[in-house]
């Protein structure tokens, strides 16, 4: 380079995210980090640590527990929270169902993915959270490509994509009325590849599920769906043991894995850079229709 005063792209993305996270702490009274246990929310949490160091992260983590979790995710979450010394708020989908706030989907493709919306909004309301930070990225999905860093939600927690506030330079408008809240996406500009390269560079701990391991699974809709107590076999499906890993983590009922022997971060980075399909393609929730993500986001999804 011609001068030494420049950042490489990961440093620039990191700096941008830290800036956004600090804006959240400064502009809101009760912010929180939405923590799914997946790599993106792990990266956001790590960036928050950097943003406020040497102080602790000045906000709680929120986890929406569908009850259909990978046990590895929950263990990972609990260890992280205790290492950070911050509060964990759990919003339970099971409780929402028990209270009659949400109704379980029926049928073979049933999942609790949509029900998370109810629990999430209830949790945000109960704890009076005014900004919920998440690890969503614009490269994930076409509706997300239009998302702002500071995304306004009305009093029903809904997103109005056609009426978004313009966002210019790096000036973020977090003004809102009582009862409204914001979703904030500090790693909006990161790609899946950036996230993996960053995890590698920072040597971040991630759940073991991301590394190749032996697991029982069935082949459905182009991915290896893990065996679990919730799995209902269709005709012709049989459980096999595979050496596999997950590219993205969601509920155990909807997250498919891939056959892989990537058992180190280095191998994962190599594998991801050679893959020819998106990580979202592994998730049946996004395959429901062309605009299923947009529709869920409007209702209040992550």
């Amino acid at each position, binding site marked *: 380079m011609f001068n030494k*005063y420049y950042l490489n792209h990961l440093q620039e993305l990191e700096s941008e995210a830290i800036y956004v996270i600090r804006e959240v702490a400064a502009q809101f009274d009760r912010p929180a980090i939405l923590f799914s246990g997946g790599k993106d929310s792990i990266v956001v949490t790590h960036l928050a640590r950097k943003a406020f160091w040497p102080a602790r992260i000045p906000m709680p983590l929120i986890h929406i527990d569908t009850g259909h979790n990978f046990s590895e995710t929950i263990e990972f979450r609990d260890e992280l929270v205790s290492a950070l010394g911050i509060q964990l708020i759990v919003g339970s989908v099971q409780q929402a169902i028990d209270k009659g706030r949400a109704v379980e989907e029926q049928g073979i493709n049933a999942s609790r993915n949509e029900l998370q919306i109810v629990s999430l909004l209830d949790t945000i309301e109960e704890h009076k959270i005014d900004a919920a930070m998440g690890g969503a990225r614009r490269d994930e999905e076409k509706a997300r490509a239009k998302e702002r860093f500071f995304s306004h939600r009305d009093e029903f927690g809904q997103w109005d994509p056609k009426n978004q506030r313009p966002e210019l330079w790096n000036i973020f408008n977090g003004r809102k009325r009582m009862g409204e809240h914001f979703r904030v996406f500090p790693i909006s500009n990161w*790609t899946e590849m950036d996230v993996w390269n960053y995890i590698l560079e920072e040597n971040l701990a991630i759940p073991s599920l991301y590394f190749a391991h032996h697991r029982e699974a069935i082949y459905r809709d182009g991915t290896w769906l893990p065996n679990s107590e919730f799995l209902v076999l269709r005709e012709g499906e049989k459980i096999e043991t595979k050496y596999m890993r997950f590219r993205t983590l969601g509920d155990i009922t909807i997250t498919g894995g891939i056959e892989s022997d990537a058992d180190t971060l280095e191998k994962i980075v190599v594998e991801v850079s050679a893959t020819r399909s998106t990580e979202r393609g592994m998730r049946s929730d996004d395959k429901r229709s062309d605009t299923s993500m947009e529709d869920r986001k409007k209702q209040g999804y992550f």
Partner: protein
Amino acid sequence: MELLRFTTAGSVDDGKSTLIGRLLYDSKSIFEDQMEAVKQSSERKGLQHVDLSLLTDGLRSEREQGITIDVAYRYFATPKRKFIIADTPGHIQYTRNMVTGASTSNLALVLIDARHGVIEQTCRHSFIASLLKIPHIIVCVNKMDLVDYSEQVFNKVVEQYHEFASKLDIKDIRYIPISALDGDNVVNHSENMTWYKGASLLNTLETIHIGSDENHLDARFPVQTVIRPHADEYHDYRGYAGRVAGGIFRPGDNITILPSGLTSKIKSIDTFDGPVLEAFPPMSVSICLEDDIDVSRGDMIVKNNNQPEVGQDIDVLMCWMSAKGPRPGAKYYLKSTTREVMAIIKEVIYKIDINTMQRLDQDTDIKMNDMARVRMRTTRPLIFDEYRRNRITGSLILVDEATNETVAAGTIHA
């Protein structure tokens, strides 16, 4: 690897979506399942070819209408650079979206249909790029396949554009003849246009020098928040957290806090990864001072010998973004860097016709998508530089007190 942010706008059907689709496709940034989805959608719509624009037009209403109505961000990377594209609609009613996309870009791609030459939208987009001080423009003369790859046609468009652009304030303009549909000169050199000796579009994007786009002269550090750990180990720690907006800061620098005017010296510049000896844009760091003085969010740390303006009367070029025009005498929250003050528009000096770049002295009635030169008065001092010196400390937004909407964006001129 560096990051290059660029914006694209062009009139409907110039081939913008096709070009972006091609850049993504040829740089292998489109995954098979995305491509499969686009193929299926194209077939459903009864199209003969795969419509790459479906990759970028994401919202339901856009897909239904077949147009781009919002800013969409797209990402691709080559071994040399990572790119962020702010893809914006070119229609006049989307001026505000163009302004939004331009605000964070270092480069603008301007598309021109070779058959039509420079038209109104070309001028509008270029003018916005120059108002927002985008340092680099690449003019892509597209659809060269429809004009027999003619060098004469290309030269004529270049000449036309050059004449128009002489009225603009843009440092670096380049011209490339392309066919977005077939990929000529997009990634590879075109066999159909051997007369063109310049670099392909992707090659230009990969190599254009952007290292000196940041301001490294005027040290500016808007304070976002104060870090005070409640741990014994860091009992007296007070770090001023922020992102460097200009210049270079080093421990030992004599600094002034604005607007208070208090002075001190930098003790250390900290990050999670350890202290640093130099902080420059766009680094996020925490600055610790030798003295225990009052500093809070919205203040700016600058060097003693190079200070920005501090004042309550500002001259602003603004783009109105809200469906309702400004209410007479209305107060707005004015946000600039991390500072927020109340402000009123005292006077509309003139509006600008963004198609002709003419001043409209008689017309001072501001409506959505209008650009206007206004005088503003703030309740408390603002700390700023002229926008052409610094795009961060020289920019602002206005937020409506009643609706909380962002109603305008502005660049500061004096």
